[in-house]
């Protein structure tokens, strides 16, 4: 028999996994997905209570949770876009300047592996007659 405490335990496990992911990951998007995972655990709890109480209030509340999660997703992703435009990185530890006063900065023990340098796009010589330039009269 699958009874209420089984569903509540699964909700608790989902919530905990989301919490661990949120606290330990660095990529902004993965952190946000972990937060959504926590919301899924809560939604599961609510729907289980609704089933076992025999009324629909839990399901209605879950609908509101989903609506709020959607709002949160929209605004959070807009913010992530803005943050990316500033620092060209989705790593949350580049924003250490926002930390609370008194906390020490979290630095990597080993430097991150150097990103592969982008090869510059090949510059082709312009076709046609070149315009006159300084030191180079019109040819």
């Amino acid at each position, binding site marked *: 028999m*699958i*009874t209420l*405490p089984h*569903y509540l335990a*699964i909700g*608790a*496990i*989902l*919530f*905990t996994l989301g*919490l*661990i992911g949120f*606290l*330990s*990951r*660095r*990529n902004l*998007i993965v952190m946000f*997905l972990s937060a*959504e*995972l926590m919301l*899924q655990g809560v*939604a599961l709890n609510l*729907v289980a*209570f*609704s*089933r*076992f*109480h*025999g*009324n*629909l*209030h839990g*399901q*209605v509340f*879950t*609908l*509101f949770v*989903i609506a709020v*999660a*959607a*709002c*949160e*997703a*929209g*605004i959070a*992703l*807009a*913010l992530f*876009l803005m943050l*990316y435009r500033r620092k060209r*990185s*989705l*790593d949350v*530890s580049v924003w250490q300047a926002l930390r609370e006063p008194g906390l020490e900065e*979290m630095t990597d023990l080993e430097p*991150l*592996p150097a*990103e*592969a340098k982008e090869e510059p796009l090949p510059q082709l010589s312009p076709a046609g007659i070149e315009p006159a330039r300084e030191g180079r009269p019109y040819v």
Partner: protein
Amino acid sequence: MHFALVVLSTCGLFLLLGAPFLSAATVIIYAGAIIVTFLFVIMLSQQAGPSGADLRTREPALATATGFVLLATLLVGLQRVYDWRTVDAAIGHAAELARAEKIDPDYLSPAGPLDMNNVGTQPAPPLTDKARRFLDEMRAALDRVRVAAPRGRDDRRLADHRLVLDTEAAINGLEVSGFRFRDEDEVRTDAQKIADNLGRLKAVRDGSAAFDDVVVSPYGVVQPATSREDPGREPNEPRPLPAANVAAVGRTLFADHLLAVELAGTLLLVATVGAIAIAGGRREKAA
């Protein structure tokens, strides 16, 4: 992709729980709209390749420890509320003592039989270890099943039901006398009374027994004992949800939660405007 799998799994569980509308809504909104939005963001925030930062985690040991502490707290809370095995074991021990033809001498106090004529002046006889454990087990079980009586119409405070008081009196009697009464039948009677009362209180908690005219279901609903909507149903089985789930959800939404609906609509509107305002500015205008 893992997140999409998790969303699909939870919506499968929603189906099991009798929420088909919610399962469909979850799949559509989460694994549909939100993940598509993610894809757009990932597209717009292209990095030169998998960056090394994704492989490093911040404080993984501390985060995992915190997560496990939280999980342990939640699971222990669930076990305290929903696990009845200790109470069943206690009822079993009390019933066993009541049925025993000869009371196990390990229970009996080494002091002599209680002199009923001058009870007040005698010191309490010492209890053996087994007797002490038995009494502690009974008291713990009583604490689990103790039900405060629901408020009567004229009663302004919650009082302990007389079953609880009777059981407490029996346990205290056994303790004070050190398990030695004038004859062993009284010990057996007391043990039987404890077993019966604990069983009955547990049934009240379960919702399978009435309790001064009301039935307290294990899921928090108090209903009068006489009105039973569906006589074919077990007393402690939850009431079935309406089969027309979408219609019923809509009815509940607009009848009971209208204010919340309006507020949620306003919130969605503000969120949309906010998201466009934050991310919609053109690159030239950005500082």
